[in-house]
């Protein structure tokens, strides 16, 4: 014991660790009282980031970042019991980090904690938010299965919409003419070296700013931030009503971090990581690439916007988001912090959360995607097994109609449901539609024989609630 004490005092004398570490740990923070649990989100994000580093290093010990072999190493990692769990932790950890950094940003926004003197805290946080999304995107690619490869192609095509440099940028993302050997190595370096280096820098800067400017006090309606007097007022507040960060505030961080990490590990064990898709072979064309949940809402938005605006939204949308987030603390740096005095702040947050949840849901269902695996309609739906109606049902499948139009629960939802088409349309209306097509429907003029068309019309006309003739209504617009 005496030796340990001696070693410690020798170490401390030549390093001075206790001289800055102890005051740092015990620095006063505002007594947050009822709001105290709102202050655990940032530290939890950092703890999950550390978990990502640890599990990432473990995975990198077996992962081979080679376009031809990465998939096989992932299959191997999944085949081991703990490898499966570690990949699960890294996978759920990624989701947790995206959620936590998002909720942390919302908390800071609602509490007006980005105002003077903490503007740079917000700006470094914005950088960390985008870096985290960059990690989520590149991480999804490193799961180098079929979706991984096609995601790179889609990213290259999106970047291709940039004016002037689009073509170069697209091939820069691919690292060559096509997705191939060089592509994965670049994304691996981004995911494992480049982006983490920036995250380390910004986390360090962010934490330095937290110490320098102090943790924001819980906002109170009618107590606006006045930059000229704020620092003096804040120093007095700490002096009057502060508590030491360690352990008065830190214990909550510890409890919350444990809860978060325990949940991640439990999910990794019970559910496991995202299942690997088919091998990353670009010549297997049976592929339906979808982004992971973090970008599903964006995928949905890009699909649903008017077509003429696509080029603008792909490039200007993310740029506008960055500009708004950067301008926020520079423009609204003083005044009321309390969300009670900033009701639009609630409205904006509610709008963003609703957008992400709603469009995420829409992106998950992807009603615009044809259901190309839809089986031919069974006899129970068609009603007969031979004759023109049965032939028409077969044509309905063969000509691809069913991939976009649902009948009695079978088929896609890109176009209108045709379960009761016979009630809504006359044969003539149907024929016109089939011949002329529409914005999202191909014209079958010259692509269908008279006999096939006659059978198809017989079949569609037979789709009725009641087998008697009903009055036809307007043809729905597509």
């Amino acid at each position, binding site marked *: 014991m005496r030796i340990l004490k001696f070693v410690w005092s020798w170490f401390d004398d030549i390093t001075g660790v206790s001289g800055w570490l102890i005051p740092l740990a015990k620095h006063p923070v505002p007594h947050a009282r009822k709001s105290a649990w709102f202050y655990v989100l940032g530290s939890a994000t950092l703890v999950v980031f550390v978990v990502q580093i640890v599990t990432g290093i473990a995975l990198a010990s077996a992962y081979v970042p080679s376009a031809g072999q990465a998939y096989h190493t992932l299959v191997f990692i999944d085949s081991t019991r703990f490898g499966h769990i570690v990949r699960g932790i890294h996978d759920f950890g990624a989701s947790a980090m995206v959620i936590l950094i998002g909720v942390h940003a919302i908390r800071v926004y609602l509490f007006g904690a980005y105002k003077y003197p903490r503007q740079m805290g917000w700006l470094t946080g914005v950088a960390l938010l985008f870096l985290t999304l960059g990690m989520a995107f590149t991480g999804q690619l490193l799961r180098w299965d079929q979706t991984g490869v096609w995601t790179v*192609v889609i990213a290259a095509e999106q970047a291709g919409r940039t004016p002037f440099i689009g073509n170069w940028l*697209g091939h820069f993302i691919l690292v060559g003419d096509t997705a191939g*050997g060089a592509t994965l190595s670049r994304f691996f370096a981004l995911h494992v070296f480049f982006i983490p280096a920036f995250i380390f820098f910004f986390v360090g800067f962010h934490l330095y700013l937290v110490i320098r400017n102090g943790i924001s006090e819980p906002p109170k309606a009618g107590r606006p931030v006045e930059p000229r007097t704020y620092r003096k007022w804040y120093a007095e507040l700490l002096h009057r009503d502060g508590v030491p960060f360690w352990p008065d505030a830190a214990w909550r961080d510890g409890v919350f971090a444990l809860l978060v990490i325990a949940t991640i590990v439990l999910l990794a064990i019970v559910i496991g990581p995202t299942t690997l898709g088919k091998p990353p*072979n670009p010549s297997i064309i049976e592929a339906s690439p979808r982004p992971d949940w973090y970008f599903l809402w964006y995928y949905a938005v890009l699909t649903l916007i008017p077509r003429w605006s696509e080029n603008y939204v792909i490039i200007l949308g993310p740029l506008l988001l960055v500009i708004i987030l950067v301008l926020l603390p520079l423009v609204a740096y003083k005044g009321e912090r309390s969300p009670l005095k900033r009701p639009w702040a609630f409205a904006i947050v509610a709008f963003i959360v609703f957008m992400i949840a709603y469009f995420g849901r829409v992106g998950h269902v992807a009603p615009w995607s*044809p259901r190309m695996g839809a089986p031919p309609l069974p006899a129970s739906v068609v009603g007969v097994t031979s004759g023109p109606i049965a032939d028409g049902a077969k044509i309905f499948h063969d000509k691809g109609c069913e991939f976009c139009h649902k009948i009695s629960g079978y088929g896609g939802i890109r176009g209108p449901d045709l379960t009761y088409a016979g009630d809504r349309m006359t044969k003539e209306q149907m024929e016109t539609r089939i011949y002329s097509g529409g914005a999202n429907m191909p014209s079958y003029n010259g692509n269908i024989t008279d006999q096939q068309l006659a059978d198809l019309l017989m079949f569609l006309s037979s789709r009725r609630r009641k087998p008697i003739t009903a009055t036809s209504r307007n043809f729905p617009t597509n």
Partner: protein
Amino acid sequence: MSTDLMQVPEVKPCEQTRRHFLSRLTIAFGAITGGIVAIPCVAFLLGLRKVPSVWRTVGKLEDFQIGSTVNVSFVDPSPLPWAGVTALTAAWLRRESADLFIAFSVDCTHLGCPVRWLQKANLFMCPCHGGVFYANGTVAAGPPPRPLTKYPVRVQNGEVQILTSPLPITG
């Protein structure tokens, strides 16, 4: 750390100029040091490997029936040794007549997803956003802004060959 270590003695005017010069010099040397390392690194990262297009055989002439559209694949020109299956590229190939072939890129011109040929419907359909193309590659429906990209294709010594091309990027 104690602040007295940071104290510098009073400065004489001649020292001022010297220190000014030395600080400029240090910054300049630092920039040069960084530059001579950064320039080759950035140039390496920005540089894309250019490979000339080559004709790749995708099958024998007699393997293809007139009128039918089939999925073929070929190896990229000069693939990196570790590329594995990613060195492959797929195309849709149709034999129009005895010696006329037409080859389409599988990449939808909307966002690059692989389109599928629906044999009985005589259409190409994209699973991502429902883009549809007619048999001749022109847009039939949905978001694609341009017809499917075509690959040059030729018949040489009884073999059908496709000229490799970079991924078509719709600007």
